[in-house]
């Protein structure tokens, strides 16, 4: 096992990784920009190295400085957290070239999954379901009709050269198809000077469901069930839960098996998440994240497994000590992202936290680098804390979330807490009846 790990990140995730290290008896090195000299991860780490000025490009993304920090501290491994360099294959290679272990997947898999088109092709070959569609531009209307019939309605006609919603038309029934094709082609021609269009399955109210995976260097691949991250705003997840209110045990087992067998074939290593859209009982691959995710604690809550610990063990070439049958989903967990931003406009709100008090009690976990007097710097992302609650069932979990939200004190900056206080009282949310557009529609309807 490693004696010392350098944590190449900041904020709550740096603290999260520090905690796992300390519980494994591993010394920690914090790196930080000049703006983060007083940050919690710096205060708690065994050693710290200032690696550059506030802008991330010159500090948390500054590979030479991070490598130099490994060299002067003698760190044997680097945990990249999420964001920053966590999905940078070149960084993983450079770390390895310097004789330091990168705690994460193999560079080739980071690279593969970073290329969204190549990733989709690769996972489809490995047996993971993707959004069905024409292989390329469709020809005649008759060709289009037979493709659409094969895919199943509704279908989406998209400009091959397109983007930004232009040249996109939905055909809900076969009789809608000719007009949709004509219109889409015309719009595509106007917008992109190219009237080729392709067809894919149109999902109206899909959920975002993702499967957490752990794979060790001995070929064992386990899944830890799914997370439902459908409550999003502008593709930013705000509320994540596990298990999904929309999945039953058989579906969970099936998609879990699909994913683990695919990643087993791929020879994947480490923690990873395969993200899907889910509608009408069908899964459609979106992308794979080859790193730890922000919302990993909900999976930890329902499985009791410390995912960061497993990442570190896997990187140290230790075998996963569990079998798939040992993974038992117990109760329900929800995470709310406490961002330093206006709860409805989502305008960032950096500044000094004049008072901070974490919620406590049974089933409540609070992961945050905030403290009373901490200054949320304006240079980085707005995630200031994560409230994770766990209950024996979804109702207990929701009630616990409600009381925990009413306990947190974060004064001096705006946060997303008031939004969650509303959401946890919304009927659709209580019923688990939501999809990836629900939150934006809700915010639009409630004057956000």
């Amino acid at each position, binding site marked *: 096992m490693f004696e010392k790990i350098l944590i190449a990140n900041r904020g709550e995730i740096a603290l999260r990784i520090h905690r796992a290290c300390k519980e494994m008896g591993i010394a920690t090195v914090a790196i930080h920009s*000049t703006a983060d000299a007083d940050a919690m991860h710096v*205060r708690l*780490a065994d*050693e710290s190295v200032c690696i550059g000025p506030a802008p991330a490009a010159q500090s948390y993304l500054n590979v030479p*400085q991070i490598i*130099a920090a490994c060299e002067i501290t003698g760190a044997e491994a680097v945990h990249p957290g999420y964001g920053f360099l966590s999905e940078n294959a070149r960084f993983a290679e450079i770390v390895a070239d310097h004789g330091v272990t990168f705690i994460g997947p193999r560079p080739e898999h980071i690279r593969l999954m970073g290329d969204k088109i190549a990733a989709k092709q690769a996972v489809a070959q490995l047996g993971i379901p993707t959004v069905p569609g024409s292989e390329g531009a469709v020809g005649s209307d008759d060709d289009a009709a037979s493709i659409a019939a094969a895919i199943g309605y509704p279908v989406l006609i998209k400009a091959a050269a397109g983007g930004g919603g232009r040249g996109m038309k939905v055909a809900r029934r076969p009789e809608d198809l000719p007009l949709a094709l004509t219109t889409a082609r015309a719009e595509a021609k106007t917008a992109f000077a190219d009237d080729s269009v392709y067809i894919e399955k149109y999902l109206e109210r899909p959920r975002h469901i993702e499967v957490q995976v752990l794979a060790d260097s001995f070929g064992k691949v386990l899944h830890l069930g799914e997370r439902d991250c459908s409550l999003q705003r502008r593709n930013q997840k705000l509320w994540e839960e596990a298990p999904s209110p929309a999945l039953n045990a058989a579906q969970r087992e099936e998609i879990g098996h699909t994913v683990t067998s695919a990643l087993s074939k791929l020879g994947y290593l480490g923690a990873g998440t395969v993200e899907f859209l889910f509608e009408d009982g069908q899964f459609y691959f979106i992308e794979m994240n080859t790193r730890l995710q922000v919302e990993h604690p909900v999976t930890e809550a329902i499985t009791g497994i410390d995912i960061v610990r497993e990442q570190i063990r896997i990187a140290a070439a230790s075998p996963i000590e569990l079998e798939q049958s040992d993974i038992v989903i117990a109760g329900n967990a929800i995470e709310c992202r406490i961002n330093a931003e206006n709860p409805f406009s989502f305008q960032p709100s950096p500044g000094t936290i004049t008072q901070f008090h974490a919620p406590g009690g049974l089933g409540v976990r609070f992961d945050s680098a905030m403290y*009373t007097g901490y200054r949320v710097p304006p240079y980085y992302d707005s995630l200031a804390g994560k409230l994770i609650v766990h209950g024996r069932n979804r109702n207990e979990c929701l009630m616990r979330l409600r009381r925990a939200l009413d306990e947190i004190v974060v004064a001096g900056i705006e946060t997303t807490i008031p939004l969650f206080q509303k959401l946890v009282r919304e009927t659709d949310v209580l019923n688990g009846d939501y999809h990836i557009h629900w939150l934006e529609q809700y915010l639009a309807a409630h004057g956000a």
Partner: protein
Amino acid sequence: MNMKDVKQLGARLATGGKAKPPLAVDAGAIRELAELLDETGLGEIEIEQGGCRIRVARPATTAPSAAHAPLSIMSEPLAAPGRAPLESQAVKRDGDGAISSPMVGTVYVAPEPGKPPFVKVGDTVREGDTLLIVEAMKTMNPIIAPRSGIVKEICVEDAQPIEFGQTLLVLS
């Protein structure tokens, strides 16, 4: 705040005390002390001289002080948890003369082991002279004098690891 400032302030307090009724408030002194608190980042200042005493303070400190502070890279590990916070030892010095490290690495004071150092305290250097070398990722990076001056202080030891922004040397 250096001792000279303290003495001046104290002297002014004492003088003010004589000229005024028993309890004189030297608003200027307090304002100055408040500014000094800002400048120095102190929590409080207390001055007592010739029967006079002023103490000014800022509201309680901000960060969890009992959390053990990080070890800066050049300090020995502290044994006990619950220790008081350390000021980062990598804080940049104020003033034009300080030359701080532009990178993380290992500093060398001489071109090769056993050779004489690039500069010694008291040396006159000219703009462009090499003062030190910082090694990072197997590369030797010379630290060049940004202007002419006299070496007032060398703040590092040979082969010492250094952080970004850490003061290496002071020119007067």
